[in-house]
């Protein structure tokens, strides 16, 4: 452990979703002018990795699967303090579902050497699935702890941490190597520093294509995906009713009547 921890952070570049609007007439997402950023949940993963490094020493490596433009997300991660950036990019990786994505990421992580811990964000803001991390753990043959809220300690090749469940908080212990997905409770992600930005500018982003991975293309991208999207549509709104105006008394009365009608009071 004298060499410190080898920490891998999985990040994804996503559109800044709050800006993404659905055009009801043409039926497509409006993307004009929408910036691509690091998935906000992944910034908490980066923060977790950087804090581990500060406390226990080691190296933090960011890895991202995506089109060539995802390189910027890796540079942003370096600007926050990550030591290295790896881009997993190849046309045969395109159109992957969470199964194919997690398999490709797992193989790529193996190519970068050994690791102690892989940290993922809770989910992405575009796909919203939150299952790539746990699926990747199975491909790597390692345990996974999701919804981590706090890393308590690292000692003798073991980590203790807290994670959120629906009905409370659990304290767990696991041996390295392992995968965790972290919630926003781990702590506010830091901003990029000037020194970080300079490092990001100079950094060489290493690329992994299928030439290095040597996987059967049938296991990758859309061909390697078990799920297919068959339809995309806008969510149905709740059937609207009346909109009323009037004095506060009239409004309170109308609401009260509605509550009686619905047998709530």
């Amino acid at each position, binding site marked *: 452990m004298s060499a410190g921890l080898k920490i891998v952070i999985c990040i994804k570049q996503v559109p800044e979703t709050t800006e993404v609007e659905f055009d009801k007439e043409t039926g497509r997402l409006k993307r004009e002018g929408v910036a691509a950023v690091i998935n906000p949940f992944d910034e908490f993963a980066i923060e977790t990795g950087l804090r581990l490094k500060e406390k226990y020493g080691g190296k933090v490596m960011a890895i991202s699967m995506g*089109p060539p433009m995802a390189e910027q997300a890796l540079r942003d991660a370096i600007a926050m303090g990550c030591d290295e950036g790896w881009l997993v990019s190849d046309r045969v990786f395109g159109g992957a579902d969470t199964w194919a994505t997690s398999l490709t990421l797992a193989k790529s992580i193996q190519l970068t050497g050994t690791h102690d811990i892989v940290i993922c964000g809770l989910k992405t803001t575009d796909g919203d699935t939150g299952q790539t991390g746990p*699926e990747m753990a199975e491909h790597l043959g390692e345990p996974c702890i999701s919804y981590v809220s706090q890393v308590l300690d690292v000692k003798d090749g073991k980590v203790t941490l807290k994670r959120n469940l629906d009905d409370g908080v659990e304290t767990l212990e*696991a041996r390295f190597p392992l995968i965790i997905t972290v919630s926003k409770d781990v702590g506010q992600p830091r901003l990029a520093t000037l020194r970080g930005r300079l490092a990001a500018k100079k950094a060489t982003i290493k690329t992994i294509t299928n030439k290095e991975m040597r996987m059967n293309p049938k296991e990758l991208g859309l061909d390697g995906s078990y799920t*297919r999207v068959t339809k*995309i549509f806008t969510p149905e709104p709740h059937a609207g009713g009346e909109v009323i105006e*009037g004095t506060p008394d009239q409004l309170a009365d109308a609401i009260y009547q509605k509550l009686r009608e619905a047998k709530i009071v």
Partner: protein
Amino acid sequence: MSKSVDVSDACTGCGMCISICPFGVITIVTGKAQIGDACRVCGACEPVCPVKAITIKKSEVPQVFADWRGILVYAEQREGRVHPVAYELLGKGRELAATLGEPVYAVIIGTNLTSAAEELVKRGADKVLVYDHLFLATYRDDPYAQILSEATNELKPSIILIGATSIGRSLGPRVAAKLKTGLTADCTGLDIDPQTRLLLQTRPAYGGNIMATIYTQNSRPQMATVRYKVMTEALADPTKRGEIIKKQVDPNRLQDRIRVLGFEAAKEQVSIVDADIVVSGGKGLGEPKGFELIKQLADALGGAVGASRPTVDEGWIEYRHQVGLSGRTVRPKLYLACGISGAVQHQAGMKTSDVIIAINKDKEAPICRISTLAAVGDLYEVVPRLIEKIKEQKVRGTTSN
């Protein structure tokens, strides 16, 4: 270029496909449509092409999985008590089973499960596999995923449904990866395609801005995690009969790499997820103190306090009150939204409520369009009067008794 969408030379570069593509991946390059790598093969472009130049390459001949039959519901439990989402899955499972003419199975893992297993039969399971052992008292990914995978290989169901709780969303991916099959996260709609008999799994994406329908074609089982409080719970039928099979559990052959050192239960009074009445506050409150008024109204109605994401982000109220896509989904009898504009992300967490009432200054706010009743006014003027009326009624109610 996409491997699965073919554009023939008949393409005139008219651009009709560009305007329909929900992912914006089509561009015209030298007078011909080119489909980008980010294509999800949703098929939206194929029918709109006026010269029929676009063909979606169907993946290999769909395989037949005749020996995979039945709907398996994973019945999550904590301390022997079944999580209500499992009853919702049984409700939906029975519906799907009726369409397919297949049985409904339940798998329950834990300790002291006798009454839980009986309840699962009453709620619609034809067969329940029970893995009851002290070793399984607390949830851990490793042994639970191994057992559910083995149960799946034994039962060979065509469909597995798991509640999209924290536990379900850890267990589901683990099992799907072990079984080498597709998994759709956080579904809010499940149907059977009448032609193909495939499970159509509908879920929100892009922060609830779009819904996507997904299917699993060339592997079995078809797996989905399903949002809590979306499907209708199966009611208990005491006359329902089913088979309960107690399975042997041998801890020595179960992988177990994570140790649970402790558990601290959340100390909230009424969880917003379980409340019949939710009174929520939004940025329209103007200040954190506004939640005191919301609490008074919630107390008067016997409900729980909810909140919109911006108020939680501002630190006005704790995260556990947050309703919406990044918070909890609620399905109360009454959802009363005070000073909440009702962004699509918020709606994703409350729009299935039976009655929605909004109090908002802005009659153009999205919440007003989806409310059973929207009162356009100042919540600080309306809410106190409403509380008064409710209290008056209570007093009258008790004196007349």
